[in-house]
């Protein structure tokens, strides 16, 4: 029994004649939609099909990719969906990039922005690769030349990796580039995607010259935060307010249709400058009791650098030292970060640290490990080897917080 989704069927089941819509088949079970809207899943061998009629082909509606008249904003989509429509006949969810559907939800936007959509790609966030960052950076540069600011829709899982990689590649930006995602998909009435997008549009019409992330400040829908791309991290797998600026304040907050700046930021430059080479031969290693020198060496094979997430101030077991020595000796950079949720690496406090330093391990200070990774990719892609350590310690894009304060979030 094989039909197209949406086929109308007349069937007998348990002696009753029923009009249903075919949805899917899984092993020996059929899922059909009853006339009251419910799906039921029933064994195929108990069903007799009396009649069937194929679904009519619905003509695809045209998609509007440019809308409104106001500050020009470019919206680059990488995750495909910015809005969804539901076909209640079949239960299918159709993602769409029709910008009108976002603006329809906020009628005031029509006057405020002229939004144009650029469909970049449609991939799951976890499948994002450094090659894509390079391609994305070129598109971003092009779009920025045509608009006041750029909004990039992106899956949340690797959003902070993409944000920090772009942040390093763009030495200067002529306007804000705001990444936006959602923790509840846009087919749900409760989706956070609309609010995050509203905030992103507002942020991208400011004079910020950085790569940022626009997501919910809290669980309520009343405030959206703008995080620096090099300091943001997804701290929760499901909550709306998953993204936090670690050990600092967000750059700004969007509340009551108003952007309020909360901390210092780099203003936009006259021109955009981009160095889009990335060294991909880097690996990241999470230290844990039981990891062996052999493991470490295997993961370093063919790499130009390894980022170790050590314990506390940046420590690893002394049994690994010979391997670290060997790796450093082969010319591979070894960068130390901490697996603590926040705080700095300091290789001076304990003898373990001092010994690592002596071996040649580079401290990533209080950089987030994933940011240390993208920074290493950028440095080894664009600068000479001998400048690596000094540049790693230099605060280039706000990735290092030089003064941590007690009151700031971590």
């Amino acid at each position, binding site marked *: 029994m094989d039909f197209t989704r949406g086929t109308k069927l007349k069937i007998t089941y348990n002696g009753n004649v029923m009009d249903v819509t075919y949805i899917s088949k899984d092993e020996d079970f059929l899922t059909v939609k009853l006339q009251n*809207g419910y*799906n039921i899943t029933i064994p195929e061998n108990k069903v007799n099909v009396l009649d069937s009629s194929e679904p009519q082909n619905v003509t695809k509606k045209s998609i509007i990719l440019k809308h409104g008249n106001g500050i020009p904003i470019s919206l680059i989509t990488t995750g495909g969906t910015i809005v969804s429509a539901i*076909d209640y006949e079949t239960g299918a969810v159709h993602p769409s990039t029709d910008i009108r559907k976002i603006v329809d939800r906020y009628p005031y936007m029509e006057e405020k922005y002229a939004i144009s959509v650029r469909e970049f790609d449609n991939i799951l966030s976890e499948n994002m690769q450094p090659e894509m960052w390079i391609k994305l950076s070129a598109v971003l540069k092009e779009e920025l030349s045509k608009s006041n600011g750029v909004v990039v829709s992106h899956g949340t899982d690797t959003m902070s990796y993409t944000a920090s990689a772009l942040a390093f590649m763009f030495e200067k930006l002529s306007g804000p580039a705001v990444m936006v995602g959602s923790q509840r998909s846009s087919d749900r009435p409760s989706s956070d995607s609309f609010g995050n997008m509203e905030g992103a549009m507002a942020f991208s019409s400011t004079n910020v010259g950085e790569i940022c992330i626009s997501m919910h400040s809290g669980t309520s829908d009343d405030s959206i935060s703008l995080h620096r791309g090099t300091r943001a991290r997804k701290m929760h797998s*499901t909550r709306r307010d998953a993204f936090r600026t670690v050990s600092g304040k967000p750059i700004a907050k969007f509340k009551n249709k108003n952007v309020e700046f909360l901390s210092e930021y780099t203003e936009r430059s006259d021109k955009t400058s981009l160095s889009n080479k990335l060294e991909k031969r880097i690996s990241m290693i999470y230290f844990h009791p039981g990891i062996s020198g052999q493991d470490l060496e295997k993961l370093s094979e063919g790499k130009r650098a390894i980022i170790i997430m050590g314990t506390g101030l940046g420590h690893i077991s002394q049994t690994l030292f010979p391997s670290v020595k060997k790796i450093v000796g082969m010319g591979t950079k070894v960068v130390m970060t901490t697996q603590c949720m926040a705080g700095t690496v300091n290789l001076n406090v304990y003898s373990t640290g001092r010994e690592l330093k002596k071996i040649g391990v580079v401290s990533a200070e209080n950089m987030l490990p994933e940011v240390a990774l993208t920074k290493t990719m950028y440095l080894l892609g664009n600068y000479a080897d001998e400048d690596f350590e000094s540049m790693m310690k230099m605060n280039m894009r706000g990735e290092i917080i030089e003064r941590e304060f007690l009151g700031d979030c971590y």
Partner: protein
Amino acid sequence: MIVINNENNKKIKIGLEIHLQLSTGKLFCKCPDIGSSEIKGKFTRRLFPTENESGDIDIAALQEERKNVLYEYQITDNSCLVEADEEPPHEINADALETALSIAFSLNSDVLSAVSVMRKVVVDGSNTSGFQRTAVVSTGGYIKLKDRKIGLTTICIEEDSARRVESSNDYTIFSLDRLGIPLVEISTSPDIETFQEAVEVAREIGLRAMLTGNIRRDSDAIRQDVNFSMGYGRVEIKGISKLSLISEALVAEENRQKYLAEAIGILLERGGFNATTLVDYTEKIEKSESKIIQKGIASGNRIFAGKLENLGGILKSGDYRIGKEIADALKLFSIGGFIHSDELPGYGISEDEVNRIKKFLKSMENDAIILISIPESKKDIAQDAINKRMEKLSSLNFSETRAANEDGTSRFLRPISGSGRMYPETDIPNIKINKSTLDKLNSVAPKSFDQAILSFTEEWEISKQEAEIILSTGRKNEFIELCKLWGKPREVSRMILQFIPEMERKYRRKLDYNDLRVLVKGIATKNYGRISLEIAIERCISGNDIEQVLSSEDIRPLERNELKVIVERLRASGDIRKENIIAKVKSETSRPVDPKTVMEIYQNS
């Protein structure tokens, strides 16, 4: 008067949807179904109706109106990230699902071997997600009432919605305490023909479900929706919480439709309704002494006037209430109401003013006029709402969803929502139920209430009457648990059916079941008897701390030698007989006294 020809389909048809809350804990998380009333925090959300490809004009209009509504949610201790829509649903609560299946088996319904959870889109804020999770567990089935067989259509398991705490025009407050409690929904075919039969069907289904012992006993744990038709389309009345109100609600609805049909008959005979146009009348009436008018103008509203053709005298006179039907439709758009000519002069508006409005609108004898105080921006919405409502009523199609009021009447809630606003819950894969579970549940499902009473009576050696009360009030599981702790079913039965209710009446306080369980367990462990337990229960109900009661000397029965001292002292003081010895001993102490021991001491010494 045009006589509405309604002979062919005049027969009353009633269907019921019965919703029962389960006491198994919430459906898609590990939160308990019971919570304290303490508010742990709050958050606010908006809901954006998802684009619907087919579209429904009335509902779309509603959604338009709700775009800017803020919903506030109160966090309770029986809610977690799932209720806050901050985490995907966990696996379905197996106890809840099995309870639903047991009910299905006992109602002869065809249980499906797999459950497909759906999202039913609801954008009124009562679900944080914007949809209610619901699934069919069985189709068909029936119950027998004397010689009648009432068919069932489906049995579903679903999440209860959030409880509405407070609402105003632009925001509504909900509590998360009720959100996610499992509900079993049993829908009957429209086979029911009389109001009395509707009540009996609801009662029978309720009793059958009670046998599972997993039905909550809160005041709104059982709610009925009634589908009613008498030839003017299907009206759904939602949320009748008492059985006794089903019949009243149906009588009220029959009368409403009857008089509405008559009034519409008059309207049609006069030539029907033509769409009205609202005209800004603010300047012409701004000097009126009417408080409504003055208050409206002061708050920035405009006063609009409109002529309702052929509706004079039937908006509100005698049993005719078309005015209320229109007001209900306006209320949906947060428009508080209007003044119409059947009530005028009145509300501070003079006869002279009324005549001037009539003249201005060129109102004829049969026409009605209305005044409505709203912001300029709502004029089109109001005009549209009035015209659409009258168009629908004029077609003698009264189908709609109404909400039950406490007094047995009901109010307009919304147009009947289409069947289609559902799509699969993608976070929960289809749940296949294995055959051995189904067979087991089927074999133990009682096929009638009488049969269940009989076997319960035999099993626990209590009276038929006691069994009936325990089962019909959903206390089966509590009774069994207490019997396991206490060991004497008859004492347990007497305690929960007589002693505790008596004490609760005496002190006007309720004893929480969990406290009772602690007491029974505590006293059983100490090996004290029924009298100690009763003293402890009374102490607790009268307001004492449970731990103190359990550790108090007062519940420790007097031992034989202690009793002996008292008996001898009484004997020495004279005037004791076999008849009064026990009372005398009891008056000497506040601790439990075993009468048998007292009698032995008295007789043997």
